[in-house]
């Protein structure tokens, strides 16, 4: 087994979708090796202040991706690795560690510096040597950035660990549920609330700058959509509308918000320029048109409409022209989200009494269902377009956050212990 196994696994699982990571063209893909076991990786505790904690955050990030199997440190024969000295590879080969991450934390002038190296144990080569510096309280983010660097070097795909998730935290029973806007790191750390729980909140979504979100708030008097700045906690309404307004989502450049406005029972899609605050109507069909989501270049939108008799997915130009249906399978398709990588659209599909999270190409081809349960909804893409978070409910049970990779193979609960819904993944932080 080589380091390339991981890439091979990724290529194989995506190969069925016609996907080959271009960045790693030098890797030979052996189609006879269908082994998708996670890669054994050794991440001994880094030396210095907070070193052990940083290693643990890295290990749990990589483990949660499903692509890596961090080894138990109890089996590590070589202790106190020095960042400037080559590891004793034989000792790591003996426990079948394919890769090794070692590092050293140094505090200098009140700042935390973390040096680390990533090694290919069997070829005895260094794959990465990097240094991150920040304030000491930022140690978790440094661990996330190291995780991203390792993930990217090993898979050829961008990481998604230095990110946050905004979502709706739910408390109370089914008949008196309180829904509060909440935010956490992608690994569940640093959770905090952004609203007081008095209004029903839904559909939070990140702007491309990761510092602003938009969301919908519902009261008996009607609904509003807001911008909320995460740095200043300033909340601003996007204006008054004749009927209900919902399903807001930023354009990829952050300059516009698309949303649905209901008037006399008919929902249509609008897009507002955030500079001028002028809203433009994009659909005028008497059917339900809702859940707009931009393509990564901002030129098109996918949305949900039942103009054909049942809810299906449609793609239209940014000016509302040339709307064309892309979903043709049996079932009801809703909540489409265009991948930030551009290659897929994720959606919720209901077939009979079962709900699925699925993906299809923007032209509707290659539909694949990744999950299946009593109730799955609200998919959101990790910024690398290879992992989705979504909400799942069991009959009568609370809503929980889950993640699934784009092959459908790596499905697991998200690291948030409480009840949550409507997750939205941030872009990579700066």
């Amino acid at each position, binding site marked *: 087994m080589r380091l390339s196994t991981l890439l091979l696994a990724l290529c194989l699982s995506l190969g069925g979708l016609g996907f080959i990571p271009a960045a790693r063209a030098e890797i030979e893909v052996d189609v006879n090796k269908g082994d998708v076991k996670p890669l054994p990786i050794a991440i001994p505790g880094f030396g210095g202040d907070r070193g052990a904690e940083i290693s643990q955050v890295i290990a749990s990030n990589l483990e949660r991706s499903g692509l890596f199997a961090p080894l138990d440190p109890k089996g590590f024969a070589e202790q106190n690795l020095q960042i400037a000295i080559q590891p004793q590879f034989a000792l790591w080969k003996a426990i079948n560690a394919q890769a090794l991450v070692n590092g050293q934390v140094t505090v200098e002038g009140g700042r935390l510096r973390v040096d680390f190296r990533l090694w290919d144990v069997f070829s005895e080569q260094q794959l990465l040597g990097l240094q991150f510096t920040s304030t000491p309280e930022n140690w978790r983010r440094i661990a996330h950035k190291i995780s991203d660097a390792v993930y990217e070097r090993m898979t050829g795909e961008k990481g998604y660990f230095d990110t946050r998730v905004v979502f709706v935290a739910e408390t109370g029973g089914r*008949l008196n549920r309180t829904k509060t806007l909440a935010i956490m790191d992608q690994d569940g750390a640093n959770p905090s609330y952004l609203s007081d729980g008095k209004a029903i909140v839904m*559909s939070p979504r990140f702007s491309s700058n990761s510092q602003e979100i938009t969301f919908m708030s519902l009261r008996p008097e009607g609904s509003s959509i807001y911008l909320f700045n995460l740095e200043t906690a300033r909340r601003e309404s996007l204006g008054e509308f004749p009927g209900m307004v919902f399903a807001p989502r930023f354009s990829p450049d952050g300059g516009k918000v698309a949303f649905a406005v209901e008037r006399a029972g008919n929902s249509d899609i609008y897009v507002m320029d955030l500079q001028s605050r002028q809203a433009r109507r994009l659909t005028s069909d008497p059917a339900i048109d*809702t859940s707009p989501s931009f393509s990564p270049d901002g030129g098109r939108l996918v949305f949900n409409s039942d103009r054909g008799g049942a809810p299906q997915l449609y793609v239209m130009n940014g000016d509302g022209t040339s709307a064309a249906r892309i979903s043709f399978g049996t079932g009801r398709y*809703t*909540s489409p989200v265009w991948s930030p990588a551009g290659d897929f659209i994720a959606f919720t599909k209901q077939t009979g009494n079962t709900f699925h999270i699925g993906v299809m190409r923007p032209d509707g081809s290659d539909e694949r269902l990744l999950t299946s349960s009593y*109730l799955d909804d609200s998919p959101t893409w990790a910024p690398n377009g290879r992992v989705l978070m979504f909400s799942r409910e069991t009959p009568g049970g609370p809503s929980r956050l889950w993640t699934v990779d784009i092959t459908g193979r790596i499905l697991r609960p998200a690291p948030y212990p409480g009840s949550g819904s409507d997750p939205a993944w941030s872009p990579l932080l700066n």
Partner: protein
Amino acid sequence: MIFAARTSLRLTLVAVAALSMAACGSRPKPQLQTPTPPQETPVQRPAQPAYQPPAPRPPIEQGPLAGSTQDFVIKAGDLVYFDVDQYDIRPDAVATLKAQAGWLTRYPAVQIRIEGNADERGTREYNLSLGSRRANSVRDFLVSQGVAPSRISTVSYGKEKPIDPGTDEAAYERNRNAHTALTSGAR
């Protein structure tokens, strides 16, 4: 009537009390004699008059204040139900909505809000739109029955406010509804 009945009952009780006191007064006193084992002697109880049930009291009718929310709920009904993914008014909802319109015509100061709801077997955003359609179907029906549009507002709660926590078809059906809430003007 009620007063008269109570008075006669009280008179009857007084009469009974007088009779028992008279009976006590006439009880024979025990005689002093050679001790003999105490004997149980049956106590002479005075004959009491048979119980006279009071004259039947007319029931007190109780009901909601006319023109109140409870009155609306009882006389008309505040919920109508919908079929799966549908928003047209079902035949069984017509009578309820006509009664709502009739009631609202009688109390013209009342303002209403129609709240559209969907069951949990749909996605969150789509169900918001579906709830809007249901609320507006009810609104249109009430307007067609002569209720002024200016008295009606609508809102959709999507699937956020179920009235039945169950997870079977009966619960889903109850949760596919439009609720007519009286927002002002009710007594």
